């Protein structure tokens, strides 16, 4: 774990203040959900109290995360995602009959204001990451996983690009056009669909695949995946690195995040699904993992077995 370092710059101070704000709000939501509910003008019932407690736990975690991390970008984006959930919750409360609309509107405005601060802070922290050669506004995601299979198997499965939609959540299809070129189709945040052509720029069997999108891409990006034997017969380490420019620049990215599509998390999830598929032959699903706030009970219309 990295030691905590106090940053003297303004973004660091803004981040620290937001961290303490998170902790204060979190404690208040946990200790007195009824009071907070009344203060925010939403109905003080068990459901709302439980939601507020959950928000409180999340605020605490985000606050501690922001304060404890040397570079708290991830936790700041956690705050942004959390703000989005709060806004959604307050928005749905606005429709309730018993709610005091004025107070909810005020609370919504307050949360929206904090969201703006979070987005600013998150963006600035992101920008302070060293990105030699990267264009302004580019997002860099790097993540890795260890898969209990030989390097050759793992590489071969990935290199067969038609396999990628089996574990990449947003990818609908990949069509191989030639030895270097392929056509990709994906669903984007807010229900949009995007398509692009990509070309392999570097390739070393059982070691590395690097690619970049071509001119027609809505989301211009480049990426590389490396494969290496993990020590002590633990299988294969897969490292993925992605850089991309989201649609409509940084604003588009912030919007994408507000819709809950945090790209680092998505890449991590996809890589986990890759591991699951390679090791177990399937991507495990649970009744409660099939939808947001879906209770863990059997579905009346289950998806077809895979």
């Amino acid at each position, binding site marked *: 774990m990295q030691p905590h370092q106090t940053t003297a710059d303004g973004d660091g101070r803004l981040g620290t203040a937001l961290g303490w704000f998170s902790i204060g709000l979190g404690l208040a939501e946990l200790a007195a959900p009824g009071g907070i509910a009344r203060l925010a003008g939403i109905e003080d019932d068990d459901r709302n109290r439980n939601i507020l407690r959950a928000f409180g736990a999340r605020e605490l975690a985000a606050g501690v995360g922001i304060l404890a991390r040397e570079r708290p970008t991830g936790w700041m984006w956690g705050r942004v995602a959390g703000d989005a959930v709060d806004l959604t919750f307050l928005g749905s409360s606005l429709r309730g009959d018993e709610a005091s609309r004025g107070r909810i509107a005020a609370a919504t405005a307050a949360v929206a204001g904090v969201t703006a601060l979070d987005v600013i802070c998150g963006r600035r922290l992101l920008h302070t990451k060293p990105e030699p050669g990267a264009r302004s506004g580019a997002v860099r995601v790097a993540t890795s996983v260890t898969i209990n299979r030989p390097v050759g198997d793992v590489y071969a499965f990935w290199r067969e690009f038609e396999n990628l939609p089996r574990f990449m959540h947003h990818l609908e299809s990949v069509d191989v056009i030639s030895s270097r070129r392929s056509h990709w189709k994906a669903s984007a945040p807010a229900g949009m669909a995007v398509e692009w052509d990509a070309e392999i720029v570097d390739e070393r069997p059982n070691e590395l695949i690097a690619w970049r999108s071509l001119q027609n891409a809505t989301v211009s990006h480049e990426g590389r995946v490396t494969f290496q034997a993990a020590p002590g017969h633990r299988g294969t380490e897969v490292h993925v690195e992605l850089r991309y420019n989201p649609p409509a620049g940084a604003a588009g990215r912030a919007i994408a995040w507000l819709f809950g599509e945090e790209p680092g998390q998505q890449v991590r999830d996809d890589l986990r699904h890759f591991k699951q598929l390679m090791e177990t032959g399937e991507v495990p699903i649970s009744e409660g993992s099939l939808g947001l706030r879906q209770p*863990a009970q059997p579905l009346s219309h289950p998806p077809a077995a895979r």
Partner: protein
Amino acid sequence: MKATCWMGKKHVEVRDVPDPAILNARDAIVRITSTAICGSDLHLYNGFVPTMEKGDVLGHEFMGEVTEVGPEVRNLRRGDRVVVPFPIACGRCNMCERELYSLCENSNPNAWMAEKLLGHSPCGIFGYSHMLGGYAGGQAEYARVPFADVGPIKVPDSLSDEQVLFLSDILPTGYMAAEHCDIQPGDIVAVWGCGPVGQFAIASAYMLGAERVIAIDRFPYRLRIARERAGADTLNYEEVDVLEVLKEMTGGRGPDACIDAVGMEAHTPGPAYAYERAKQAMMIETGRPFALRQAIYACRNGGTVSVAGVYGGFIDKFPMGAVMNRGLTIKTGQTHVQRYMRPLLERIESGDIDPTFIITHRMRLEDAAEGYQTFLTKEDECLKVVLKC
């Protein structure tokens, strides 16, 4: 089908929900014949485990008859009578290959939630919060069992449901707690908590060669069962100074190993309880670790503290100074049930242990809500509730 659903704090209801279906090729569907309420279910019931949703089907101790298998399940057939282990494990990852099944790297579809709280994710568990998978549980008429080619164990018809049901969790859990103690000839083992896991930890410590087992609780009927059925010497912590008496009983050395079979909702006499309970209510800490602290203080120099009780998040005033300066070893973990089912089934068949001695209440599945309340309040000397479907 009917299923026991978590509807909020101290509120469970048996409701009609859809029947489960095969979702993946390695799934099986089991028609449940017997299921039990676990002490750890009370942590859910009391609202101490985060990421529960209204309507979640509870239950992780269950057995029954296979009614359907996915195309990749080749070791089970329709009609097989099986006990299902509570940790869901793929059998193929690095952890499963090392028989650390409860640390399976693939079975938690909501691993990202667990990573936020715990750093890395453990396995998925039936009916035990969304953070640990969001799987529908087994206090129901049917359950979908993922990775059914790895977990469920077939049991012979010569043994009753009650004799084998606890292979799903608490018998292996008590056994692993004792195994963690690395019991040597002459060892004295102390066990905090005489609930079902504590009782099996006592019995297992004797099976593994302990010289003497000392059990600690505050309910006279639980201490009586520990004495009469599991063979322990007993201490009521509301009546005696446990640390002093343990020293006296071990010639001043302290127990060679101490087992915490209590977990995050421990009790203690006096104002310390109110203090920690208040902090827990405000979620400043998630556990009240009275038993664990005492187990650490009591343990002899260089001894082992084995933690079988469940902890969820954070605890305060952990006596790390005692652990470090006195060279204690702490061993813990969710139970790697798959590793213990077959050897413990053999011990049941050979008569080394009869796990039925802990059952005090038998109810119908429909009465699960009453079962939870009875188990929580310990009315009617309740030690273990088995629900029949």
